[in-house]
């Protein structure tokens, strides 16, 4: 069976990027970091190749971190394992309304 792999780039990150095809609701992915640590997390939602999941519960308004840096804020409460993308993450830069 193909390894269902997700990568966490930095220790500060609260999301990981999935590099596997066919990830559907309930699929368990192996989240790895640079040190080789890994955690199995069941995915909530169908997640395409190269998209992200939450590594812990993230409250609405909380910052979402990747590369150890802020990539936006949660626009809704997000559960651990849940698909994170434009439907629940909003950019904080380049906006006309802020």
């Amino acid at each position, binding site marked *: 069976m193909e390894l269902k792999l997700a990568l966490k780039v930095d220790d500060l990150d609260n999301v990981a990027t999935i590099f596997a095809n066919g990830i559907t609701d309930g699929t368990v992915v192996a989240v790895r970091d640079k040190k080789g640590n890994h955690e199995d997390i069941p995915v909530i939602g169908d997640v*395409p190749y*190269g998209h992200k999941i939450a590594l812990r519960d993230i409250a609405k308004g909380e910052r979402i971190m990747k590369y150890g840096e802020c990539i936006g804020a949660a626009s809704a409460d997000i559960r651990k394992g849940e698909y994170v993308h*434009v439907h629940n*993450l909003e950019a904080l830069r*380049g906006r006309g309304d802020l």
Partner: protein
Amino acid sequence: MSYTFMGYRRPDGKYGARNLVAVIPSVICATDVAQAIVRQVQGTVGYFHHQGCCQLPIDLTRVTDTLISLGKSPNLAAVLVVSLGCEGTDVERLCDEIAATGKPVEVIHIQELGGTSRAIQEGIDKAQALVMQASGLQREETDISNVIMSIKCGASDTTSGMASNCVIGYVADKLVDLGATVVFGETTEFLGGEHILANRAVGGYDGPVGQKILEIVDRMEKRAKAIGEDMRGGQPTPGNIAGGLSSIEEKSLGAIVKSGHRPIQGVLEYPEFITDQKGLWIKDAPGREPEILTGMAATGAQFMMFSTGRGAPQGFPSMPVIKICGNPNTYEHMGHDMDLNAGRIITGEKTIDQVGEEAFELMLKVLNGQMTKNEALHYFSTMDIYCLGPVI
């Protein structure tokens, strides 16, 4: 270890990786004549931009300056300027400043010659003489420190920041350590990562270079906001979003990885040509391909290393573009357009350093004359010049 490549020595002491004759329309209205000349004469390329008249003075100067810098490229043996006769660009300065590098420059004026067919005939005759003269030149060995590499990422997805951009960062660091020059840009894609770049500036975050980086990002963000519109929807692009990039910040943080880790020496304005600057530099240019490829070729870069995840096929008329593909699925799907598969980093088959060394070796071959995939497919005609004001 030292490295060399075989390049064409130009009268100004620079070395080209290609030996082309450029046909440069001074204005969009001269394009059809220039295209006819390029179609007929082997060894010519054309810069088919859309500018050069009915623009604000600042932009007309910018267009003239950019065409001058393109003409100075060491990849060009000679230049033929095609002028209409009533354009807003400064044709005399265009010809004089390119000729000052010592390379042959010819010019034709469509109105003066009596129109399209006469201008095409005169242009073909002149271009033919220029390419025949250029074709006798031989490559000479020169040190790698004479290389200028430009870098860019396009049609990005989340593999770009984790694989292909890391590979380019590896090559960028190695070239800077060897005394060469590296230029990156895409100011829009610094948004959210500008503090990291400013901290890497010579003189630190608070120094003039660090502050200049913050200033060009602020300028770009304000320009988008000034229209009263949200950048989201335009950046990240629909393709970026489909590829998993959720915000401009995420795109930026992945994008700046391609600049490597060396100190940033300074910021170049869009039309600026590199004379003797070494090390890592920023060129203030937006991310869209036609405009940034032009800005990068205008630095005098002999080639570009271009990272992609979703698969960008295009190149530039006078600058070979090496495509480093971060997404293993895309490489499998679009292998005829992609020069190197960095997706093997994502699948765990190779490390960043291993693919980085492969990219460096490929770069040497391209500098010595090996075609990139986009060159072989002749996929390099789209280009344009980034202007600031409206067409008036």
